[in-house]
């Protein structure tokens, strides 16, 4: 049974409208990202961008292969620890430390994926959840590396390529933005490559993809590993940006949060997860100040999204744009 999470109600969410508005919107978004540190607190937008990347990476498996992973926090968190450790104790420059984190995240993804892709749907979700819980307990026990309950504190930001100092939060922001745009371009490339087309074919109709001669499991495993590695980049960048890697990053609640970000923004759309991540992080920030119970509100948004808003913000927008486009043509 193929899981068609993104297409159950809405048809193809990545709708077919003319490229015109899409380019304009893309340019506007990039301009907005460049100006953002002057509009909001840079430390906060930096964190939001890391989660945006995390959600985009997660969406690669949920939106484009149709696999609901409930364990992506493991890749995010373990990479945060790996990056933090490499930067703090081995003196890695930030970009090397992040690469190291991505490598560790990707390796873990390869192992988890190898076990998990044997099953589909709910089983896949449960297996990834259980394995990520194993990673969580491992991180508690390996206190020598992870700092246990305290986390890995005081991760140095260092100098990119040993040259550019990013201690300053504005420079730090542009570094994070560069990482984000690079990875986003990579995701865009993956989705629009022949490989991405096969992934979407698997999502839509797995038996047919098999009958066409594709080794579905290999495609799934590669997509899962890529997604884990990119989640690793997000986790590593977060460790550098926030200068902390902690147990919160590996906890299963984090896996739930990234699902919410993706769902809220729009499963299977390219920018949706980033939008969702921005909203969720701002909401948490705002709620933490107001003293309202954050978890309750997050849960409430979750329920509303699942019940009434399954296409997400960008999904709804795409449908609206598509409808307008087809009206203009006729």
């Amino acid at each position: 049974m193929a899981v068609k999470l993104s297409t159950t109600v809405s048809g193809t969410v990545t709708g077919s409208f003319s490229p015109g508005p899409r380019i304009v919107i893309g340019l506007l978004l990039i301009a907005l990202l460049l100006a953002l540190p002057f509009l909001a607190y840079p430390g906060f937008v930096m964190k939001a961008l890391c989660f945006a990347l995390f959600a985009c990476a997660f969406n690669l498996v949920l939106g484009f292969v149709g696999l609901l992973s409930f364990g992506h926090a493991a890749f995010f968190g373990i990479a945060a620890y790996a990056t933090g450790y490499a930067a703090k104790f081995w003196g890695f420059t930030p970009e090397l430390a992040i690469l190291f984190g991505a490598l560790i995240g990707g390796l873990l993804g390869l192992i988890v994926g190898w076990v998990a892709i044997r099953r589909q749907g709910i089983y896949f979700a449960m297996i990834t959840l259980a394995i990520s819980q194993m990673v969580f307990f491992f991180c508690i026990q390996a206190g020598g590396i992870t700092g246990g309950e305290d986390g890995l504190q005081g991760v140095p930001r260092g100098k990119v390529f040993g040259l550019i100092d990013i201690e300053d939060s504005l420079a730090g922001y542009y570094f994070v933005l560069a990482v984000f745009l690079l990875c986003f371009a990579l995701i865009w490339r993956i989705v629009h490559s022949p490989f991405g087309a096969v992934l979407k074919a698997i999502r839509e109709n797995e038996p047919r993809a098999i009958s066409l001669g594709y080794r579905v499991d290999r495609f799934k495993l590669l997509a899962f590993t890529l997604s884990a590695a990119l989640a690793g980049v997000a986790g590593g960048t977060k460790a550098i940006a926030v200068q902390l890697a902690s147990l919160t990053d590996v906890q299963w609640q984090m896996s739930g949060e990234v699902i919410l970000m993706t769902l809220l923004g729009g499963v299977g759309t390219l920018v949706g997860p980033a939008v969702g991540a921005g909203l969720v992080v701002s909401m948490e920030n705002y709620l933490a100040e107001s003293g309202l119970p954050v978890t309750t509100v997050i849960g409430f948004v979750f329920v509303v999204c699942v019940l009434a808003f399954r296409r997400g913000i960008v999904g709804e927008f795409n449908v609206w744009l598509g409808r307008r486009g087809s009206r203009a043509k006729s």
Partner: protein
Amino acid sequence: MFELLGIPPQALFGQLLLGLINGSFYALLSLGLAVIFGMLNVINFAHGALYMVGAFVAWFLMQYAGIGYWGALVIAPVAVGLLGIVIEKTMLSRLYKLDHLYGLLLTFGIALILEGSFKHEFGVSGQAYPVPTALAGGTNLGFMFLPFYRGWVVLLSVVVCVATWYAIERTRLGSYLRAATENPRLVQAFGINVPVMITLTYGVGVALAGLAGVMAAPIYSVNPLMGSNLIIVVFAVVVIGGMGSIFGAVVSGYLLGLTEGLTKVFFPEASNIVVFIIMVVVLLLRPAGLFGRER
């Protein structure tokens, strides 16, 4: 006294009893999950939160209504069951036509709402709940000390599990239930109200979680987060037993509780993850779980 591999028997049997207690809760919770999954095809992520609600209802009854343990043992599961029915009627039933993963996500959201609200109201420190006076104290079995209350928990959970298994596998209502699992439309054509049956199944399934919550209250303190880590272990138990298999859920619940206890004696570092390791091994060797069948 004899010694086993250098482990004093007191410690060994103590941990085995602890494992059996944990196993009783695993069995009760995974039983409810399996019943719900069999009928609704939904993995009920809110199960742990509803288990917590059950414990809190018992605590409320004690605190504000003066109703003790024995009353709570009846009232709390009913209350949680009713809450479950409301959840099913107002939210879950809208999602049956969609991918089953939406059910998982919805119940995850509900779990967050419940946990977040209780955490906000009562903090995370936990409330004490006394052991009922009739079951206070314990007895020395010669090789170990057995608190009466813990013996009662094991006994009650076995009785409840056997009764549920009997109701589903051996009674007429259970046969309707199993038939509706196989082919709901055909069963409906025979004049049986399947939607009501689905609602009641969900209610009974979460009532079992509520019951487990009341039973847990005197052992562990009543705490908003008591269900959130337990539930993931229980998920693993259900996967190991074979999703939807009632018998598998119960048996693997007890077995994994005992295994965990044994691991605590011989290799304490791994006691938190042994269940997950077993799950991975089982999935590699028998993808459908120990007692499950492919569907």
